[in-house]
C-alpha cells in the first residue's frame, strides 16, 4: 500500500519535480496534498489523511512546537535542505528531525527516507522529543523507563561536540502539592548543598505559577532565563553553550536558570521546548534541580475541542524527564492531606518510580509531642511511603536568608534545617551523611 504523504516545500520547482516523480514511478509514496505553508500542513496533518510530511528547512515559522503537533498527529517528518545548507541541516536536527535530505537527491532516495521515517514513527512513541505528547493530551507514560534521552545517538552525533566525553547530569524534580509547602526553598537549599558538596549543580525554575528563585538568590537583573531558553529551543537554536550563557553563575559550582517573571507568561514554557532545555541542561551540570509547579491537572481538554496548550505541561514534562522526584510536603495537617492526595495523582501520572518524600516545616507545635514519629507514622499509613528527610521549621534562618537574598548555607550555616537538607543532599550524591550516627540515638 502506498504511503500517503504531505509536502510543504518552498522551492516550487523541486516540489513539482518530486511530486511528478512520485506520480510516475511506484516508489511507495503518494502525495495527498501539496501544502502552501505551515498552518496548511498542520491542518492537513490533523485530519489524519497522511502519515508523513516532506518539508523544507526554510519553511516559514517552522519550530519545535509545530513539529510536535505533526508528531502528535502521527505524521513523520523528513526535512529537505538545499545542497550545502549546513545551517538548515543543523537547525532541523536540533529541532528533532532525524531524516534530513538534500534537494539534489534522487526521488528514490527521498521516497525511501520518507518510508523509513514513517516506519520509525510507528515503532517509536514520537519523533524528536521522547514524550512529546504530554504537551497536549496523553498522560505521561513510561516514566523512568526511558534512558535520559531517547534521541540519544542521533542528537549527540549531530552535536558539534560529539566525541567529547560528555556525561549526563541527573535531573531531580522538586514537586509539592498546592499551598506553598516550600518547594522552591527546598530546591534552592538542596542545590546549594549539592554544589557545596562539590557537584556542579544547575537550578532551574520551571514553576509556571510563581517562579521566585531569581528573587530568592538576590538577582539584581531580570534575566531572561528559562523563557529565553525555551524560545531558543523552540526555534532550534539552543545548544549547550547558549544555555550556559542564559544561566547565571552564583559561584561555587552553582548556576541558576531563572524562571518566568510573571505567571501570565506560562505559554512560553512549551513542553516540547522545555524537554529540549532539560536534555541540554544534563550536559551542563552533574545535578539539575528543577523547581516545578504544583498543579498536575490537565483540564484543558474539558474546555477545548482542539489541542490547546497545557498550562501544566511544563510541570508534567519536568516530572517525566526527571530521574528523581522529590515530593515536598508541609507538616501541617492541611498540608499533609493535600500531599496525600497530590501524591496519589503524582503516582498515577508517573508510575514506576517512587517519589522521595521530604517533610518541610516540621515542628512539634503542629504535629504533637514527637513530630518526627507522628508525621512519619501518618505518612506511612496514608501513602505507604517513609519520609526521607524531615526539615525542621527554622523560620528565623529562612527569613534572614530571604531578606538578604542569600542562600541559607551562607546566612545560617548552623541552622538545623540546613543540616537536614545537607543530609538529603549527601544521600543524593550517594554518600553517607556525616551526622547520621550522631543523630540516630537522639531520634529514638
Amino acid at each position, binding site marked *: 500500500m502506498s504511503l500517503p504523504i504531505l509536502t510543504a516545500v518552498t522551492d516550487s520547482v523541486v516540489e513539482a519535480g518530486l511530486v511528478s516523480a512520485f506520480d510516475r514511478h511506484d516508489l511507495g509514496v503518494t502525495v495527498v496534498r501539496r501544502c502552501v505553508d505551515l498552518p496548511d500542513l498542520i491542518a492537513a496533518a490533523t485530519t489524519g489523511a497522511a502519515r508523513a510530511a516532506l518539508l523544507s528547512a526554510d519553511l516559514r515559522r517552522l519550530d519545535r512546537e509545530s513539529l510536535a503537533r505533526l508528531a502528535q498527529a502521527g505524521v513523520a517528518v523528513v526535512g529537505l535542505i538545499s545542497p550545502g545548507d549546513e545551517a538548515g541541516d543543523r537547525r532541523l536536527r536540533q529541532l528533532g528531525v532525524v531524516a534530513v535530505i538534500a534537494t539534489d537527491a534522487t526521488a528514490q532516495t527521498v521516497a525511501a527516507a520518507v518510508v523509513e521515517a514513517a516506519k520509525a514513527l510507528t515503532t517509536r512513541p514520537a519523533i524528536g522529543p521522547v514524550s512529546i505528547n504530554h504537551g497536549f493530551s496523553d498522560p505521561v507514560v513510561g516514566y523512568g523507563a526511558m534512558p535520559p534521552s531517547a534521541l540519544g545517538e542521533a542528537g549527540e552525533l549531530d552535536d558539534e*561536540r560529539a566525541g*567529547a*566525553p*560528555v*556525561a549526563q*547530569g*541527573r535531573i531531580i524534580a522538586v514537586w509539592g502539592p498546592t499551598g506553598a509547602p516550600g518547594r522552591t526553598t527546598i530546591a534552592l537549599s538542596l542545590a546549594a548543598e549539592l*554544589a557545596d558538596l*562539590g*557537584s*556542579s*549543580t*544547575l537550578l532551574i525554575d520551571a514553576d509556571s505559577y510563581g517562579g521566585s528563585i531569581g528573587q530568592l*538568590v*538576590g*538577582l*539584581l*537583573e531580570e*534575566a531572561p532565563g528559562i523563557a529565553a531558553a525555551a524560545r531558543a529551543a523552540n526555534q532550534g537554536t539552543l545548544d*549547550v*553553550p547558549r544555555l*550556559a*550563557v*542564559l*544561566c*547565571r*553563575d*552564583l*559561584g*561555587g*559550582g*552553582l*548556576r*541558576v536558570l531563572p524562571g518566568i517573571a510573571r505567571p501570565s507568561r506560562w505559554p512560553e514554557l512549551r513542553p516540547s521546548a522545555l524537554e529540549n532545555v532539560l536534555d541540554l541542561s544534563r*550536559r*551542563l*551540570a*552533574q545535578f539539575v534541580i528543577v523547581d516545578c509547579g504544583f498543579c498536575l491537572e490537565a483540564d484543558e481538554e474539558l474546555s477545548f475541542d482542539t489541542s490547546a496548550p497545557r498550562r501544566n505541561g511544563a510541570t508534567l514534562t519536568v516530572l517525566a524527564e526527571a*530521574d*528523581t522526584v522529590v515530593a515536598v510536603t508541609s507538616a501541617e495537617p492541611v498540608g499533609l492531606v493535600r500531599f496525600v492526595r497530590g501524591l496519589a495523582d503524582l503516582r498515577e501520572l508517573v508510575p514506576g518510580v517512587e517519589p*522521595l518524600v521530604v517533610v518541610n516545616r516540621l515542628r512539634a507545635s503542629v504535629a504533637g509531642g514527637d513530630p518526627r514519629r507522628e508525621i512519619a507514622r501518618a505518612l506511612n499509613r496514608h501513602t505507604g511511603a517513609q519520609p*526521607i528527610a524531615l526539615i525542621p521549621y527554622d523560620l528565623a534562618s529562612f527569613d534572614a536568608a530571604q531578606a*538578604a*537574598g*542569600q542562600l541559607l548555607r*551562607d546566612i545560617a550555616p548552623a541552622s538545623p534545617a540546613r543540616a537536614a537538607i545537607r543530609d538529603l543532599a549527601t*544521600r*543524593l*550524591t*550517594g554518600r*553517607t551523611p556525616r551526622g547520621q550516627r550522631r543523630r540516630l540515638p537522639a531520634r529514638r
Partner: protein
Amino acid sequence: MTDLAPAFGPGSLPDGRGSSGRSADPIIPPSPPARRLGRRGWRDTRLLFGVLLVLVSVVIGARLFATADRTAAWVAAKTNLPAGHVVTAADLVTVRAQLDDDTAARYYPGRRSNEVIGGTLARPVGKGELLSGGDFAGPDAGATRIVPVVVKAGRVPPLTPGDHVDVYVYQPAGAVDETDTSSGSGTSDGATSPSDVGTPAAGGAGAEVLVLHDVEFLGEQRIATGDRSLTLRVPVDAAIRAVAASQSERVDVVKLERDGRGQVGDTGPTAAQGYGR
C-alpha cells in the same frame, strides 16, 4: 538506607566545580556571573567612610579650637595680699585669661612670674586678682616704717588691709592752743568751729591730738587682753609719733572714707580739747 544515587558511581561525571569556570574544562561552557545583592556585613564601605568622616571632623575641630584659644597665662594672687607684702612664689598662681592688647600690657604674663617674686606690694591685692606693675612699690617710693599701734577693744572700726586711717591720742595733761586748733587747712572756711557745739571744758580736761594722718592699715592682730595691735605703714618722720602713740592707753583709730574723687579730704582740726577723764 535507600540508595538514592544508583546511576552515579564515582567519576562518572565531569568534575563538579568545573562548570563554575574555575577549572579550564573546555567541555562545559561557563555561565556569566550573577549580579546579586551583596551580603550585608558590618564592614561596609559606607560605615568606614562614616567613621573616617567623624574622625577627620573631630581632628579638624580640635585643631581649630586649639588655634582659636587666644587665652594666655597671667600671674594672679593666690590669697589676699596686704600692701607691703613681699611676694613669694607661694603667693602666686597663674590663671588663663584672654585680654586685649591694651589691658595685657599692664599685667604680668605667667612666664614672667619670677620677676614678681621678691617685690613689695604697694597696695593690697585680693585673691585671684591679676598682678600689675602698679601693684608694686616703684623705685621712687619713699621709705616707710611699719609700726604696731595697740588699740583697746572698741576703739577701732572694722578695717581691711589697705584702708587708710587717722590715729588720735588723748593727752590728759595736754592743752590746746589756738594755733593747733586752726592748723588744719579745712578750718579756714569755719565749717567746724570748735565753739559751735558742746565745747569741752577747758583747763585740766586734757586734749585730743591727731598724731597720724592718712596712714595705711596693713593688718591687725588680737592680743591676749582683747586689745588689738594694728600694723600701720607710716612715713619715716611719723614713726616716732606712732611709737609714742602706741604707748598711750587712749588711742582711737578712725577710718578714712574717700570721696567721689578718691580723695580723703583735709585733716580737719588736728587737736581738740578733751572732755576730761
